[in-house]
């Protein structure tokens, strides 16, 4: 598989009205879902989610070993899947990588702005769902650049479908810790009691309740980085 450069895209600072919907199974999602005004600072953002190749390079260069390696890179990245998004990484694993490249994970609000932009688009590519523009309801992960036509207003690719993306921060409501995931994935479980899969809209997040690292890693969960810019 031919490798490619995961170039950084500049996002100019702006304010936008944040309003998010969350997947409601049972329980609550104790965050302010808006509408509220949010200020986005100047940012650089990865065009694609971090790939297996990029993450493998990070491991080679840093010798990173998670404290708890249960399910860490359980899919065993190799050259054949080098351009697929890296998955089976916890939020800690993602943060470690982001730090190494001089970046961080996007906040939930930043992620939405990167995907929806100042026009508040429902999907990265527009306001109408189009299954040919994302890996939706598929059988497996695909290359992060497989759906370039589905890029967002600023040029970011693979924001909806393929794999969920970690956002920054652990939210704590006093009794629970959780993180917010974005974008949906290729996988679609069959029952309404399951986590709703498939590609997800820009204004949609899912509350992943945090447990041990083995439970925090999944075959459909990756990330992309942002970088503070002047």
């Amino acid at each position, binding site marked *: 598989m031919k490798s490619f450069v995961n170039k950084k895209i500049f996002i100019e600072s702006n304010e936008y009205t944040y309003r998010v919907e969350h997947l409601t199974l049972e329980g609550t999602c104790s965050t302010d879902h808006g509408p509220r005004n949010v200020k986005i600072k100047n940012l650089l953002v990865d065009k694609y989610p971090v790939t297996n190749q990029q993450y493998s390079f990070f491991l080679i260069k840093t010798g990173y070993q998670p404290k708890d390696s*249960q399910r860490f890179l359980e899919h065993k990245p190799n050259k054949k899947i080098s351009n697929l998004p890296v998955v089976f990484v916890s939020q800690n694993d993602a943060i470690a990588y982001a730090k190494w490249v001089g970046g961080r994970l996007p906040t939930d609000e930043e992620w939405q702005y990167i995907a929806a932009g100042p026009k508040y688009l429902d999907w990265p590519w527009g306001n109408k769902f189009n299954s040919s523009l994302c890996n939706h309801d598929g059988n497996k992960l695909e290359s992060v650049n497989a759906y370039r036509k589905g890029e967002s207003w600023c040029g970011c690719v693979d924001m909806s479908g393929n794999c969920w993306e970690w956002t920054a921060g652990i939210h704590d*409501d006093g009794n*629970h810790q959780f993180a917010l995931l974005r974008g949906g994935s290729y996988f679609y479980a069959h029952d*309404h009691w399951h986590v709703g899969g498939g590609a997800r809209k820009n204004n949609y997040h899912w509350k*992943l309740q945090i447990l*041990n690292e083995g439970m925090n890693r*999944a*075959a459909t969960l990756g990330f992309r980085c942002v970088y503070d810019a002047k």
Partner: protein
Amino acid sequence: MQNKFKDKKKFIDFSLGSLNLSLVVDKNILLKKLNFIKNINNELFSIRVENKLIPRNKYKIEKVFKKTDVNFTVISIDFSQNFGNDFFKGRISFVQKKKNITDFIFQLSARWHKDIPKKVLLKFPFLINMHKNKNFLKPGDIFDGKIRINKGVWNLHEYPPSIISDNLGNQCLGFEFYDQFPWQANYNLGISEAISNENFEKLETEVQLTRELTDIILMKIYTSSQGREKIFSLWKENTRERYDLRKYHDSQNRWIKKNYLQHFMFAYGEEAFDYKKMEFKIIQIIKEGKEFGGYDSILFWHQYPRLGLDESNQWQLYKYLPKNYKTIKKIVDICHSYNIKFFIPFKPWDIRSNESLDSHAKSLEKFIKATSIDGFFLDTMSSLPDSFLKIQKKFPSFEFCSEGTPREQRQIETLTSSWDQIGDIRRNFTVEINSNFFRFLFPEHPLNLVSRWSVGSDKDLLIKRAAFNGMGMVIWQDIFGCWLPFSIEQKKKIKSLKYILKKYHKCFFGNNSIPLIQTLSKKIICNEFSNSFSKQKIYSIYNFGSNKIKGRILKLPSAVKEFKQIYGKDANIKIEKNQNFFYLLANLDIDDVILLNIKFDI
């Protein structure tokens, strides 16, 4: 059954156990007399064909058949009717096999002109008139002054009888419309449901008639001269005869029967998980459980709402816990050292296309061997699949508990424990205190009351409801990430409830318990718990009115040897003897639920 048939007057008199009934069989079949209900002179049925009523007094009585055997008594009346170009035949029968229980059978056939069936609607005027009677109680109802209110609930395919009584409440008739097939297309089920509605008089039952006599209605008539409690006992006895309850009786000493408090251990929260140490706080959970009186079992829950994020199935998610299955094994061992049983859940909705119930049974078997868990909780289910039933042959002490109370016969026979779950977050739900008839019909089946979203005063009511029905509870405080704890006061009340359930277990779960016995106040409901081998009874009493109640509340069956209030706010209980009767006196505040233990002399 005694009967006589007078050709000229065409009366048929006979007894239904302790009550007498008279039919007039002339050109119609009328219920002439019922010894305690005045002015009964009603048609047993009326037939409408394509919107035309078959005129009264036009039926031709073909034959009256009477037979008394050592085993049963039968009276049947065959009749016929020409109507237009169609011809109808029918039969009314009373069959009595047991004293105080009589089957009323109504059969009908039609020979249609040119063999084209017509729309036929039936009405039962005698039932409608009984339904209008001031002493008629719909299933689960009690009298509340001049009105009737529902204070009984059930959620199974057995329908308690409607009851009509004399003014004193002694002479009673109960009507049951049993139907083997729980589908609304059945006539009996239709009547059974309709009789619980106010507009029963509008009910017309549509029937499809063929050339052969077809069973249209099978009504069981229960009779009692000892009040409505006896009607319930007769119904209970008759209903239970159909059931194979060996599994309960074979396991009389099973631990599940004393599973009074089950803790729902939601893995993703401070209650259960130490985020710093990255381990489960099982010791702390057990310690906190003592505030409730101690947990009898713990249900571990971590698959939902997490399944579906990727392809991992419900068994794989255990591998991802710290140290794989060893985490569960460690928790189970700790629980066992505190004499607490351990459940894990089964998610039927997660069965994948390449899986089967058999394959899940195999996974369960491996899991039991690896971790020594004690039970399997059947999420969203109310039945026990045969694949799982086999597990109990290999692990005889292993138990199953379902989220839903079983409704059908086979389910009740095989699944020996369940939740009694109430509440619905989608509407303004308030916990009601009423009698769960399932609890009294099958006292051997342990139920744990739960209403996951109830908070504040609703939690108070929930505890009262558990006390009123003498049942255990589920202590569920972390609702999938929403923390809804019990207060210190509520914990104390649950602790007190658990204490008495344990102490008076044999009486609470005895085979003679009766819901909604008659009280001396229209604003009080009362359940009676007892077994057949002791002179002890426990009464749970609830003041549902809007005023305090002071004075006589119950007439007791005999002289009292000793009595004690065992639950609830002190009600200043006294026993009063007046002539040869014994009365229970109490001071009951609004919404009070109290429980009394009484030992009788006889």
